[in-house]
């Protein structure tokens, strides 16, 4: 046995734990021949003796009686209904608080986007056949206008949203999905020219979904909302509306925004 192998079994040897008899003999013979390892063994034995003294001193420590009484009362009352300690309830309250905050934030974003779509002149009912209701109620999914990028436009890589400038002269085409059986006429696409503004990420998730489907929607947003998101707008004109492009990711979540004016 060499010093390295001795070091592997020194704790068992010093603390009297069960170990292979042959290993024990080899370790003891090594310690008798190696002064350094003999000193190490003596140190470990001293430490083991001290730990053993603590263990012996604490062997009679018991949990206070009131714990047993409380547990037995809970047992007798039906332990399934035993009251949980307060901190567990606090944890649950904290979790629900975060969930409620997330829900409120999601509702606020949805409301802003919905308002922005209406204000930017994209009347969802404008293309309906005569006689259709003029109320702003959203139509079924197959009839709703969908904003798609042209195929020759490079997709916005979401992991680059924070740093990469937007492509120059990118064109966004507004295009309806039409059910030919109902609406044979296809409305000409309306094109918008973008400026060179930069996208700001709105969620931390943006960097993890580089390949997912996404859409860009042009909206009008109150400056106060942009201020709330921490975007660089003039606070003195917080009540005014600004035009912006919003990148909508999967599940309808707004991923990034670009201010146009």
């Amino acid at each position: 046995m060499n010093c390295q192998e001795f070091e592997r079994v020194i704790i068992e040897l010093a603390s009297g734990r069960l170990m292979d008899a042959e290993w024990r003999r080899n370790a003891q013979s090594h310690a008798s021949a190696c002064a350094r390892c003999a000193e190490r063994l003596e140190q470990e034995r001293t430490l083991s003796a001290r730990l053993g003294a603590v263990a012996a001193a604490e062997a009679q420590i018991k949990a206070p009686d009131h714990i047993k009484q409380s547990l037995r009362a809970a047992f007798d009352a039906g332990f399934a209904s035993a009251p949980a300690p307060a901190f567990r309830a606090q944890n649950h309250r904290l979790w629900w608080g975060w969930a409620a905050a997330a829900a409120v934030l999601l509702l606020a974003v949805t409301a802003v986007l919905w308002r922005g779509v209406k204000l930017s002149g994209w009347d969802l009912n404008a293309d309906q056949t005569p006689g259709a209701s003029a109320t702003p109620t959203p139509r079924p999914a197959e009839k709703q206008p969908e904003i798609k990028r042209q195929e020759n436009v490079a997709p916005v890589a979401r992991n680059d949203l924070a740093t990469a400038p937007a492509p120059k002269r990118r064109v966004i085409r507004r295009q309806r999905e039409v059910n030919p059986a109902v609406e044979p006429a296809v409305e000409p696409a309306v094109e918008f020219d973008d400026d060179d503004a930069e996208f700001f990420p709105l969620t931390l998730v943006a960097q993890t979904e580089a390949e997912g489907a996404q859409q860009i929607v042009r909206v009008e947003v109150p400056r106060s909302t942009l201020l709330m998101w921490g975007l660089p707008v003039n606070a003195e004109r917080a009540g005014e509306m600004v035009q912006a492009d919003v990148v909508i990711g999967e599940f309808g979540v707004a991923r990034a925004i670009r201010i146009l004016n």
Partner: protein
Amino acid sequence: MENISRKLSDEELLRLALAGDGDAFDLLYERLQSGIYRFTLRMTGSEAMAEDITQETFITLLRDGGQQDAARGTVRSWLFGVARHTIYRRMKRERFFVPMTEEGEGEEMIVDERLVAREDPLAALTRDEMIESVRQAILSLPPHYREVVLLCHLHEISYAETAEVIGCSVGTVRSRLHRARALLGEKLQAYGKSKDDSRDLLRARCSA
């Protein structure tokens, strides 16, 4: 409790307790409470915290004890695992790393009278000092080192069972224990040196 045989295993007692046998629960509690309480006490350094966690651990046993799988470990190791999980959750939530005993707690430390009764007062004082220094050294270890020292040395649980409690390999237990003992040795050596220095200072003052 007389109706319950003390030869029953922990697993059998747990099964009876979960079926509503109060005597079985009492006996199981008597077997396990001391270890769980001492473990939580030395992990947290706080009596109040140890009482809370011990109570919650046994409530968990009553509520979720049916999930304990005898094929994967003993009731004792499962319960130590529950206590450990609760301790870490409390640590994470409250960040209460307490290197010092609470006010008045030091005087209430229970010391086995059989160890000190027949010794002279000076030897008893020295032994108490030594024990307290080891306690403080253990409490000052990082939690993942502290727990292996407590389980393997103060509770004399095997490496394999300690690995079950912690949820790691036996090799990890061995390496952590090795490192923990090295840290303990350093701390106790520093403590012994500071004590020698104070004695030298006292001797110098007396002779001056």
